[in-house]
């Protein structure tokens, strides 16, 4: 054989459509990955009306675990592409999405990023789409909590690193741009003791505190903010994480205003009913998998085996997803989607979220960026 052989996608009309799903089945983000894949399967059922087929062609899924490691994801993507797969979806972690995206562009295959929230996936290249929300949409939702931002004082409390940077920048652009003064308190992601930061926040006396914190230290952080009286003294906004994390907010949970990508009961769409029927309780990242499946089916239907046609079919496409009306913006492949405000109620291990308000996809639309590649 030749070292540069790759299998070509069977062009004949009965050959199955190969779809590769590269996501975290193990590692720190395994539970996100689990929701994603459940959502995907439900979405596939929904979009193909239970046949698992597009026309006569079966959709053949190959699932690969990347364990949250970009190097493994890249290997998996290359393997799939080498075997003729034209559609890759998944990427639970942002780092993975950012490194798989260029592979998709180099090899001209479709890539639909999953729960990875980094803004940088939007506009990454012509072949890269996203099926979840991005950080910017979170921030826009947060803004809705303070009414008119003009003259207000906003503090961002975030981790060091790209995730914190992105959030801080987004708050500066969105809320600062609307007239508020934005400052930030940053802490190392490895911090285990948060009193110094809580003190700094308290001294700043903000009208709104926007917290962007991910990881296992979050409960300790919330407890400290609560103990030092920060939660009582100002409006605190943060993103609502997966259900398993709700009890870990403890007493602080009911004092926080949550912006939410999704929680069970946030919407009442056809898609959400179908999803709920299979997974019982919908969680944060089920909708991302669901939307990814809808996009895959659309791409396969309209594009056949021609990736450029798939891209055209997806660009500008609007569909009814779990969250409501979703639109793929043609210019940069941002996925415009509804976002929610929520409150937690309950105690112990039993918490429920209720929607306060929902914002439409247009209201939370991120600014268009130029397509990079």
């Amino acid at each position, binding site marked *: 054989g030749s070292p540069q052989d790759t299998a070509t996608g069977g062009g004949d009309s009965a050959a199955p459509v190969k779809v590769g799903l590269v996501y975290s089945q193990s590692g720190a983000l395994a539970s996100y990955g689990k929701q994603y894949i459940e959502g995907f399967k439900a979405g596939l059922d929904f979009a193909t009306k239970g046949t698992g087929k597009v026309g006569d062609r079966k959709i053949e899924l190959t699932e690969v675990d990347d364990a949250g490691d970009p190097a493994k994801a890249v290997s998996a993507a290359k393997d799939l592409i080498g075997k003729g797969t034209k559609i890759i979806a998944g990427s639970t972690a942002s780092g993975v999405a950012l490194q798989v995206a260029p592979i998709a562009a180099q090899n001209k295959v479709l890539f639909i990023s999953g729960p990875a929230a980094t803004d940088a996936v939007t506009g990454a290249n012509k072949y890269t789409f996203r099926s979840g929300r991005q950080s910017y949409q979170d921030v826009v939702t947060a803004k809705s909590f303070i009414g008119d931002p003009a003259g207000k004082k906003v503090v961002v409390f975030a981790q060091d690193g790209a995730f914190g940077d992105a959030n801080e920048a987004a708050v500066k652009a969105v809320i600062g741009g609307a007239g508020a003064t934005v400052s930030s308190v*940053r802490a190392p992601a490895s911090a285990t003791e948060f*009193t110094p930061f809580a003190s700094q926040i308290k001294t700043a006396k903000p009208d709104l505190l926007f917290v962007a914190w991910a990881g296992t230290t979050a409960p300790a952080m919330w407890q400290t903010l609560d103990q030092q009286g920060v939660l009582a003294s100002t409006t605190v906004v943060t993103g609502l994480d*997966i259900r398993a994390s709700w009890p870990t907010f403890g007493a602080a949970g009911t004092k926080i205003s949550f912006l939410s990508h999704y929680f069970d009961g946030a919407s009442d769409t056809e898609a959400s009913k179908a999803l709920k029927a299979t997974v019982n309780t919908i969680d944060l990242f089920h909708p991302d998998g669901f939307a990814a499946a809808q996009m895959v089916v659309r791409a396969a239907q309209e594009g056949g085996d021609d990736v450029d046609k798939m891209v055209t079919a997806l660009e500008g496409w609007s569909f009814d997803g779990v969250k409501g009306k979703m639109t793929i913006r043609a210019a940069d492949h941002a996925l415009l989607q509804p976002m929610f405000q929520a409150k937690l109620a309950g105690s112990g291990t039993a918490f429920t979220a209720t929607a306060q308000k929902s914002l439409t996809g247009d209201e939370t639309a991120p600014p268009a960026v130029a397509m990079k590649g």
Partner: protein
Amino acid sequence: MGTVILLALTGLGLAALYFLVASGLSLVFGLADVLNFAHGLFLGVGAYGTWWAAGNLPGAGPDGFGFVLAVAFGVAAGTLVAILVELVLIRPLYSRTIEQVLVTVGLSLAGVALLQATWGADARPFPRPDWTRQVTGILGAQVPNGGLLLIIAAVLVLGAILAFLRWTRYGLVIRAGVENREMVTALGIDVRKAFTLVFAIGGAAAALAGALGGVYFGTVSPGQGSSLLIFAFIVVVIGGMGSVVGSAYAAVVVGLVQQFVNYYGTSGLGDICVVGLLAVVLLLRPQGIAGKVATA
């Protein structure tokens, strides 16, 4: 003033947590000469043991005596695992330092993965008495009770370990055994027992750290132990391997430096300072602060 006191006391709380992790590490490392990368596993077992007991063990619970019982169960579980690890895995490998590294690294990977396989990757809320969530006003500072609890526990553990090393013959046997196991046996002493005991004590201290760390963090997750471990290692090394008192000093220094630099400097500087401190201490005094191996 209030801020300084708050930072100092919370810093000490952090120091206490580091010390609890480091003390066991230091014993095992300094006395048994085992570079135990699986120490984080003992921590995890202690934390999950407590968590499990509070929910399932009759009589145990998140409050009052039930909580004490739960913690005792967690500590017992951690100790038991440590003993098993020593008996089954480490015992055949004494004086083969490098292979110990392989085994303990393997153990830490496998152990954490096992915890994750059993209870999932997500953090679970940790059972704890309500008063640990409250604060106590000290000179105008609102000091979290969880931190104070850690400080008290650390002082008790320090005292207990010192007493053990000073008043029993085991300290001596272990120190001699590190140098030359064969010769200790040739003096008629069953050196293996002493080493198992060191592991048991190290495991118990780690498990206690895990349980109280759970109280402090409010959650328990599989990776918690490993993330604390790196600072614990730094504390052990700054303090001088095998010196429990040295570890105590070092923990205090590290905790306070982190806390104050994080407040008055820019974020992340605290960590860099601690790491810098480690480098400077070692370059000036390669044997660590306490400087003598295996002293009480």
